[in-house]
C-alpha cells in the first residue's frame, strides 16, 4: 500500500500547527488579562 509522501505529511503537520498556535496565543492572552489568584484586592 502507498502512503502519503513525507513532504506531504510535513505540510499537513504545518496546517495542523496553525490553529494550535492560535489557541496557544489565545490562552496566553487570557492569562495576561486575568489577575493572578494571590493578588490582593487594592482596597
Amino acid at each position, binding site marked *: *500500500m*502507498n*502512503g*502519503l*509522501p513525507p*513532504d*506531504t505529511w*510535513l*505540510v*499537513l503537520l*504545518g*496546517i*495542523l500547527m*496553525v*490553529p494550535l*498556535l*492560535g*489557541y496557544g*496565543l*489565545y490562552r496566553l*492572552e*487570557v492569562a495576561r*488579562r486575568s489577575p493572578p489568584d494571590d493578588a490582593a484586592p487594592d482596597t
Partner: protein
Amino acid sequence: MTGLHLTFGLFLLVLLGIGAYFYRTTDARRLADYMLAGRDVGTWPIAISEVASVASGWTFFAWVGVGFTTGLHGLWFSLAMLLVILFMYRYVGPPFRRASQALNSQTVVDHLALTFRSTATGAAIRWVGTVAVVVFMISYVGAQLIAVGEALGTALDLPYVAAVLTGGMAVAVYTTLGGFSASVWTDVVQGVLVLIAALLLPIAAIASVGGWGVFLDEAAAIDPTLLSSTGGMGGGALVVALLAWLTFAMGAIGQPHALMRFQAIRSDTLISKAAVIALCFQALRLTVPLFIGIAGRVLYGAGAAPESAAMLMLADLFPPWLAGVLLAGIIGAILSTSDSMMIVASADLTTLYRRQAGTQVTEGTVLRLGRLMVAGVAALGVGLALWRPGTIFDIIEFAFVGLGVTVGLPLAALMCWTRTTGTAVLATVGVGLVGTTANLYLLPDLFPIFVWPLAFAVLIGTSLMTYEPTGRSA
C-alpha cells in the same frame, strides 16, 4: 420532484425566512445597524460567519478542481492562507475594531478615507477605493453565481440560466431585507452545512473507492505526483509555484466582507477566541476539498469536469434527502459569500453618496439606497455569471488578490506601521486596482507574484517620502 428538490427548497425557504425575520424585528433605522448589526455580534457567529463568508464557490468547486488536476500541491496555499489569517486576527483585527468604533467607520474603504478625512486625500481614497471594491466584488459575486449555476444544473437538472437566476434572486431578497444581521445568521446556518458537507463528502468518496489504502494506491497509480506536496516539481519551477501560491494566499489579508466581521464584533477582546474557531474551520475547508478532488479523479477519470467532481459525487453517493442537505451546504458556501459581498459593495457606494451629499440626506433615504444597491450588485453579478468570462478559479483569483492588494494591504499597514501616510494609502489602492487588472491580461497565470511586490514598494516608498513626524500625515 425528488427528496433532493424538497430538501433544497426547504433550505431556500429558511434563508428567506431569516431575511424576513430581521426585516421585521431589527431596528434598522440607521445605516450602521443595517450594515454592521449595531456592532454587537458574538464570538461564535462572527467566527463561523467569517469562514462561511470567504468559503464561497472556491471550496467545493475551484479547490476541488485543483485537487482533481494537481493533487495535494495546493496544500501550500492552505498553509500560507492559515498563517495570513492568524496574522489578521492577531495584529489587524483588534486595533481595527477599536479604531473603527472611534471613527464610526462602516467598511474598510470608509475607514481608510475617514482616517485621512481632514485632507483631500481622504476623499480621493474613498472614490478610488469604492471603484476598486465594486469592480472586484461584482466579479466575485459573478463567480459565485457561475458556481450556483453549475451546482443546480448538475444536481437538480436546472438549465444554467434558471439556476443562476434562482440563486441570484434568493440571495438578493434575503440580504436586501435583513442586511448584515441576516447575512451573519444565514452564514451561520450555511457554515454548519458547509462543515457537514466537508466531513461527509470525502468520507463517502474514499469509502466508495474502497477505503483509504485503496484510495492512495489508485491515486498513485493514476499519477504519483497527485499525493505529493511538491507536485513532482523541483528547483526553480517549484520555487515559482510556491511563490504563486503564497502571493495568491496573501489576498486573505484584505477581504472586506471578512474584515467587516472585525468591525461588527461586540468587543476587540473577543477576537482572539474567534481566531481559534475560525482557524480550525479554515484548516478543514482548505484541506478536505483537495482530497475530494483526488477521489473524483479516481472515481470519474481525467475526462470529467474537474470543478464539478463534488457535485457528481453528491448525486451518485448519497440518498436524495441527504444529497439535498449537502447541496444546501455547497450552495450555502456560495450564497454566504455573495450576501456578504453585496453588503460591502452596497455600504461603500451608499457611504460615498452620503459623504458627497452632506447633511441634506436623511438616514431613511440612505437606508433605502443601501437596499437598492444590494439589489443592483446582485443584478450585475447575475449579468456577469450569464456572460461567464472565465473559470470560477480564474475570476476568484483575480478578485481575491485584487481586494487583498487594494484594500487589505493599506489597512494592515495602517494598523501595524505608524509611518503609513494618506498619500501612500491612496497610491497603493490605485496601483493595486490598475496593477491587478492590467497583469490579469499581461501575465494571467502569475499575476499575483508581480502585483504584491509592486504594491509593497509603492506603499513603503511613498510613506517614507511623505511621512512627517507630527501626527498622521496626509
